[in-house]
């Protein structure tokens, strides 16, 4: 597959680079965010494209992609779910919530861990990631589906109902 960057995506990327008049390299994170939002994950071709765009070596991009948990090298599901595993949420039942979300989406709970952060449901519709504190501990347990935050989640259906 050869990589095609739609013109409007490239325009967004070019605009974000202008935010860093001192050093183009500073635009690595925003450029990757734009690319990941569009392509859902960062393949090696995308990484090479980003490197060329920013006049860097691909390793400079790859080391960033592998460092930050927010960047993915594997395709997530259509709806990516992030469940908070940290203390206040765990105390409010987020580990049980994760298990229940896995069960209802057909994801094997054992496949979700810190070392293998993203597990995708067999139908490709959902993926689940166990993440650290989402800074909403007062309304624990919380999770995000794509960009939407769900607070005080009592059961998995509350979260999933609008996506099934």
């Amino acid at each position, binding site marked *: 597959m050869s990589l095609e960057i739609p013109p409007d995506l490239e325009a967004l990327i070019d605009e974000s680079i202008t*935010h*860093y*008049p*001192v*050093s183009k*390299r*500073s*635009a*690595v*994170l*925003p450029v*990757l*965010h734009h690319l990941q939002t569009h392509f859902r994950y960062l393949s090696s071709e995308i990484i090479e494209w980003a490197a060329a765009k*920013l006049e860097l070596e691909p390793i*400079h991009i790859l*080391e*960033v992609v592998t*460092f*930050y*948990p*927010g*960047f993915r090298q594997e395709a997530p599901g259509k709806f990516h779910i*992030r469940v908070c*595993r*940290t*203390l*206040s949420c*765990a*105390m409010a039942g987020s580990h049980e919530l994760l298990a229940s979300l896995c069960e209802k989406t057909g994801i094997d709970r054992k496949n979700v861990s*810190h070392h293998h952060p993203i597990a995708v449901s067999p139908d490709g519709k959902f993926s689940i990631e166990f*993440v*650290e*504190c*989402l*800074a*909403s*501990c*007062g*309304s*624990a347990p919380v999770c*995000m589906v794509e*960009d939407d*935050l769900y607070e005080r989640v009592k059961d998995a259906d509350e979260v999933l109902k609008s996506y099934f």
Partner: protein
Amino acid sequence: MSEITYKSGYEPHAREHRVIFRNVDRVGWDTSIDTALADGAYEQLRKALTMEPAAVTDEVKKAGLRGRGGAGFPAGVKWGFIPKGNTKPVYLICNADESEPGTFKDRYILHQDPHQLLEGMIISCFATGVHLAYIYIREEFPMAAKIVEKAIAEAHEKGFLGKNILDSGFDLEIYVHRGAGAYICGEETGLIESLEGKRAYPRIKPPYFPAAMGLYLCPTIVNNVETLCHVKHILEIGGEEWAKTGTKNNTGTRILCVSGDVQKPGYFEIEVGKLTLGEVINDMCGGMKPGRTLKAVIPGGSSSKVLRADETFTIGRGDDAKQISIWDIPMDFDSLAACGSMAGSGGVIVIDDSRSISWILNNINNFYAHESCGQCTPCREGSLWMKKITDRLVTGQASPSDIPRLDKVARSIEGRTICAFGEACSWPTEAFIEKFRDELVGDTRPELEGAVVNPETRIANAGLK
């Protein structure tokens, strides 16, 4: 000013003192600049632009504003660290990474009152001679990033940003920079590396104190969202007047974020030091859950040392020294430090008697093991060891000697690392062991002593030695 009403169910507690959170959950409020302007936004900017920049810094110094991001360092003093006679550009970064577990205050400012932050930032940039500033927003706040970007565009349109702001001759651009899910980006030098497009590997201090050598190796001021918002209010009433709220050396208001085992968790803006931990838990948060008693409190984000419910603390010095219980600890920087912990980021995590300490500590250690950036061996390996030992503790595979081992690992990290993450990850373990040793030992199994966990014994048993 018109009466403020709050959304039903979100009314501030009677003992709150809302300054920064004045507009949070407010009826009829939105994030548009028109709403903000009708409420008097950017008036303090107008005032600041008529002053000498140094005079603005003086007001912040007089206010005694201490950083709300974690360390509690006086903001005005930090601004004064920009080297005299500096000829390089100076940058300012607003730390909106909000990643310390237990902390959830900047979230509401960013989502509900972006113009308050922008006004505070523009004034701060004017005071420190900054013409390019960034707001580093964690990736998990995608809506906040959109809201703040829109606010920046609106402020531009009205002439509060860009070239020659309000005809003062002062130029400033502010951009949003989004993180990508790593806790260490909250550490200011890690944040700077991240903003340079690299892995967020913190830099060693000295020499890399941001105020002297920060972004692009130029002087850089890094302040928390809440800290920068306060600057606007300091200008409004003057530093001395502002310092009358709160208590001596612990001035102003701050937002406490309470989570865990209380009836009504949430955010509460209080005058620093004017309320005790007991008042926060019992009055503001509705007390403990039915039938439950307090076991412990982590008072300033997960990195702060835990306080045990039945401890006696000594606060004050000399003739003022007195012994108090956990309930009577005033919620301010100095009192919490005197109690052996810290006010940190304002994240108060309440733990009741239904909780297992091993489980709590294991959860915390999992966090730090995941979030160590990996540059320093003691932190990278130590945080993983602490996770593994507590993993054993919660699965019934630990032996009694694992507890001193855990303690030793923690103490081998502190003070031997590039950044304060070393302390952040070792303090919880050190404090939990110090205060709950019996319970932790109770979760170990003496019959496992030397069986699986001690590599030397294992080697000996296998006849390898």
